């Protein structure tokens, strides 16, 4: 069966993909529907949803909550994807080196991985962003630094089981370089679990980003959902909508990505699903 047919067998995954596409479209068209800066005053402050021309209300400074959500979608998706790419990159390099060479290199790299897994990741991320000063780059780096160990362990395991197969030995006899064998021959054979773990990591990255922004560690120049909730928490008593809607946006996005990730997993490892 083709990838799509296998993917579509999981109904949840299809629903998730639908939500995700909607959110991506919202992010892409944010500047079209809300051309003004989402930080700017757009009307009467503290307007409830549906009043004064605000679909989802406005906050204490008269900022449009709906505009913030649309522009925040860009931030969340961008940081989620970038951080995951960087983390997967680090994880593949570390895992490939450890699994391919084994011995002392493996031992050293796995000790480092273990240490990074022991450290409480969210506090580590807070610390890194605080030291580097909040910006998109520092947030991406911080999330990547706390997320790569899982990928490294996975890739190492795959490399360990593949490195002595016949096709790899054939490559050695042909005189291929180690780098070429690692990247060109072994890596493509272990991509599917990496893709699955990567897709689930995007969701975690978005959750970490929103937590950082909520604590005031977001990039001060770009709108994000976590920032909106953090700014609205003092208004809980008088304006519940400022916190509520961006939270629903985070929930839906993360849920959709998790569902899609499971769908990809079912499609790429069909045997795994039939077993359970």
């Amino acid at each position, binding site marked *: 069966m083709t990838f799509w047919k296998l993917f579509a067998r999981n109904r949840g995954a299809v629903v998730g993909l639908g939500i995700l596409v909607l959110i991506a479209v919202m992010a892409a068209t944010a500047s079209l529907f809300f051309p003004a800066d989402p930080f700017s005053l757009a009307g009467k402050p503290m307007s409830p949803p549906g009043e004064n021309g605000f679909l989802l209300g406005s906050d204490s400074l008269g900022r449009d909550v709906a505009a913030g959500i649309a522009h925040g979608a860009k931030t969340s998706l961008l940081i989620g994807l970038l951080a995951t790419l960087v983390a997967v990159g680090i994880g593949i390099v570390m895992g490939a080196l450890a699994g391919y060479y084994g011995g002392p290199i493996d031992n050293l790299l796995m*000790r*480092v991985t*273990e*240490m990074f897994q*022991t*450290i*409480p*990741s*969210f*506090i*580590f991320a*807070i*610390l*890194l962003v*605080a*030291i580097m000063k909040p910006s998109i780059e520092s947030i991406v780096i911080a999330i990547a630094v706390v997320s790569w160990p899982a990928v490294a362990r996975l890739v190492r395991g795959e490399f360990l089981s593949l490195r002595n197969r016949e096709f790899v030995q054939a490559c050695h006899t042909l005189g291929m370089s180690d780098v070429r064998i690692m990247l060109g021959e072994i890596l493509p054979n272990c991509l599917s679990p990496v893709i699955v773990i990567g897709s689930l990591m995007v*969701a975690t990255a978005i*959750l970490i980003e*929103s*937590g950082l922004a*909520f*604590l*005031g*560690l977001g990039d001060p120049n770009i709108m994000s959902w*976590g920032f909106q*909730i*953090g700014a609205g*928490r003092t208004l*809980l*008593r008088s304006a*519940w909508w400022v*916190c*509520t809607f961006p*939270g629903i946006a*985070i*929930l839906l996005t*993360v*849920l959709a990505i*998790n*569902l899609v990730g499971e769908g990809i997993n079912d499609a790429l490892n069909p045997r795994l699903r039939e077993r*359970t």
Partner: protein
Amino acid sequence: MRYVVKRLLQAIPIVLAIVVLNFFLLQLAEGDAVDVLAGEAGSATPEYMAELRAKFGLDKPLPVQLAVYLKNVVMFDLGYSFRHDMPVSQLILDRLVPTLLLMVATITLAVGFGILLGLVAAMGLNTWRDTAISIFALITYATPLFWVGLMLIVVFSLNLRWFPTSGMENFAMFYEGWDRVKDIAHHLVLPTVTLSLFYLALYTRLMRASMLEQAGQDYVTTARAKGVTENRIMFVHVLRNALLPVVTMAGVQVGALIGGSVIVESVFAWPGLGMLAFEALFSRDLNLLLGIFLLSALLVVAVNLVVDIIYSSLDPRIEVN
């Protein structure tokens, strides 16, 4: 016993590496303690700052500074917080108890209900109960903690007025004895529920998967063949074995729990380590933040150690490799 010693020895390099990492993070941060002091004082001559640096040993080469730092950490001297005008270790110790209280309550609730829900889901496989529990787990797994906290405040504190919005106790009432315990428990409810939700989802999924895995093992067939009732198989044979991975997971998740407590404590103004970290963040008190980070990392190492030891006594098949 040999296992315990071996496991302790394995933990030492990790602890050392974490302390060294902490030292380099401190170096990475812009400005040192003297810059902070000079900034607090308003003005300082370069000569005075150089003198201060010499006094704190900040003019020494890096390896010497690292050695001094290591020695200080061993003596539990984590530096000085100039914002609070107190030693960092003192500040952290003062806030440790509320955080431990929150964490113990959370783990108990999350593991307890997680096991229960996972059990119910696994026993009614593919019925509406299983589906409902799976959907609940899926949604709570995707919800940001701080948002759940704020929504619980809106519903249960502001509208229903069942629970207080923030803090750990009502100081104005001067409660003593049992009244004080009850007051603290009352304040504990919402933060605990918030922090538990995420882990509840995790343990529910794990427990369900673990039950299903164990139900397919050979010993279940054997038990069935010798005529053991289904209930006895489920609750005596399968449940016991299925609990093992849940226990390990509870240990592994302590690090994440500490991270979650930063968020939950700052939402509910719970006066623990997480709240302290939030305050440190706001006043840019990096020394304090690093101290909290170091302590929480050590806490994770310690908890993992304890869980591994408990685990090895529960399951004799486990060995140190």
